C-alpha cells in the first residue's frame, strides 16, 4: 500500500476484470472527474448502518467487512467485500439509510463518489447504469443466500458462534 496512489482509472491494470470498472472510455472519463481517491487505514468505518447515504465507495484495493447490528449491539457479519466491489450502492440509489456497516480489513484505497454525482453519472451513462443493475442483482443474490443459511440452514445453537 506504500506505492503511490493511482490517480486515474485509465491507468488501472485491474480494470478489465472488474464488473463496475470496465466501462467505455467516455464513461470512465466522467467517472474520473466525480470520484475522490482516498486511502483509509485498516479498521476505518466507511459507512455506518442507519446513517443517511452520502455516496458510494468503490474498493480499489483492500477488503471491507460488511455487518449488521441489533439494537442491543450484537453484530452479525454479512460477508467480506473484495477489491472491485461498490459499497453503499442500494442505499444511495433509493436514498435510504445505509443497510450495513462497512469496515476496512486492510489499508484500503477507495474511490468515493457523492450520491448526487453518482445519480447524474448513471443517468448520463447507460452502460454504467446497466453495470449497476448487474452489481445490485449480485448483491441481492448473496443477501438471499445469507437469509437462507441463517433462516433455514442451521439451528440456533450452531449459528451462535457467528455472532461477535
Amino acid at each position: 500500500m506504500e506505492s503511490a496512489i493511482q490517480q486515474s482509472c485509465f491507468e488501472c491494470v485491474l480494470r478489465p476484470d472488474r464488473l463496475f470498472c470496465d466501462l467505455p472510455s467516455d464513461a470512465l472519463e466522467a467517472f474520473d472527474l466525480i470520484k475522490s481517491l482516498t486511502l483509509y487505514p485498516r479498521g476505518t468505518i466507511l459507512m455506518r448502518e442507519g446513517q443517511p447515504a452520502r455516496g458510494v465507495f468503490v474498493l480499489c484495493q483492500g477488503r471491507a467487512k460488511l455487518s449488521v447490528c441489533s439494537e442491543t449491539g450484537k453484530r452479525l457479519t454479512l460477508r467480506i467485500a473484495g477489491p472491485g466491489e461498490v459499497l453503499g450502492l442500494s442505499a444511495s440509489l433509493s436514498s435510504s439509510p445505509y443497510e450495513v456497516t462497512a469496515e476496512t480489513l486492510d489499508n484500503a484505497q477507495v474511490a468515493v463518489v457523492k450520491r448526487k454525482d453518482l445519480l447524474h453519472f448513471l443517468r448520463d451513462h447507460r452502460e454504467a447504469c446497466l453495470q449497476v443493475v448487474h452489481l445490485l442483482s449480485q448483491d441481492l443474490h448473496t443477501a438471499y443466500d445469507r437469509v437462507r443459511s441463517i433462516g433455514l440452514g442451521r439451528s440456533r445453537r450452531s449459528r451462535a458462534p457467528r455472532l461477535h
Partner: protein
Amino acid sequence: MRVDRIFCDLPTSALQAFENIKYATAYPKGAVLFVEGQAPRGIFVLCKGRVKLSICATDGKTLILKIAEPGEVLGLSATVSGKPYELTAETIDPCQVNFVKREDFLRFLKDQPDACFKVAEQLSDKYNNACHEVRSLGLSHSAGEKLAKLLLEWSSKNGEAAKQEPRLKMALTHEEIAQMIGTSRETVTRLFADLKKRQIVQSKGSTLVIRNKAALKLIASNN
C-alpha cells in the same frame, strides 16, 4: 395507478416499448409464478393482487420473505444475472401479471436508460428488504420478539401507526406468520394466546387490535 409505482412510471417511449414485449396474464389464487432453483425465464410485473415470496430448505422448511404488493417486479435479479430464481413466488389473491421474457427484458434495459434506472431502484429496495430480513433472523433473540416486530411493522404500513390502538387486518394464517419469522405454527399460536392474555392485543374477527403499543414495543426491543 402508474404514477406511484416505481417501475411503471416510465416515459412514453419506454412504456411503448414495454407494451410490445409484455404478455398480460391472469392467475388464480395459489398459482406458482416461478420456483426457486429454476432457470430464469423472465420477469413478472405484478399489476393486481398479492404474491407470497418464500425460500425453502432441503428438508421442506419454508421461510416467507415478503408479501409482494402491486407494482413490484418479481424475478428481477435472477433475470438480470442469469442465475436461477432465488425465491418461489406464489399468488395469494387472483392476480394480474405482466410477463416479459428474459431476452426481451435485457434488450429493453439496454435500449431504455430510464427503465434501467428504475430497475436499479427496485433492486435497491429488494436489497434493503433482504438486509432487514438477515438482521431480524440472525440477531433477534426469540420468536416473541420477532412476532412483536412484525406486528408493529404491519401496523405502521397502513397509516394506523399514529393511532392509540392501531388495527390491522390479519391476511395471513398462523402457519404463514410462522414461516415469516422462522418458527413453528404452534409457537405463533401460543404467542398470540399469551399476548391476548396480557391484554396487549385483542382479535375481533380477522382484525387485530393492538391495545398496548408500549408493551409490544418493549417486547420487540429486547426480551
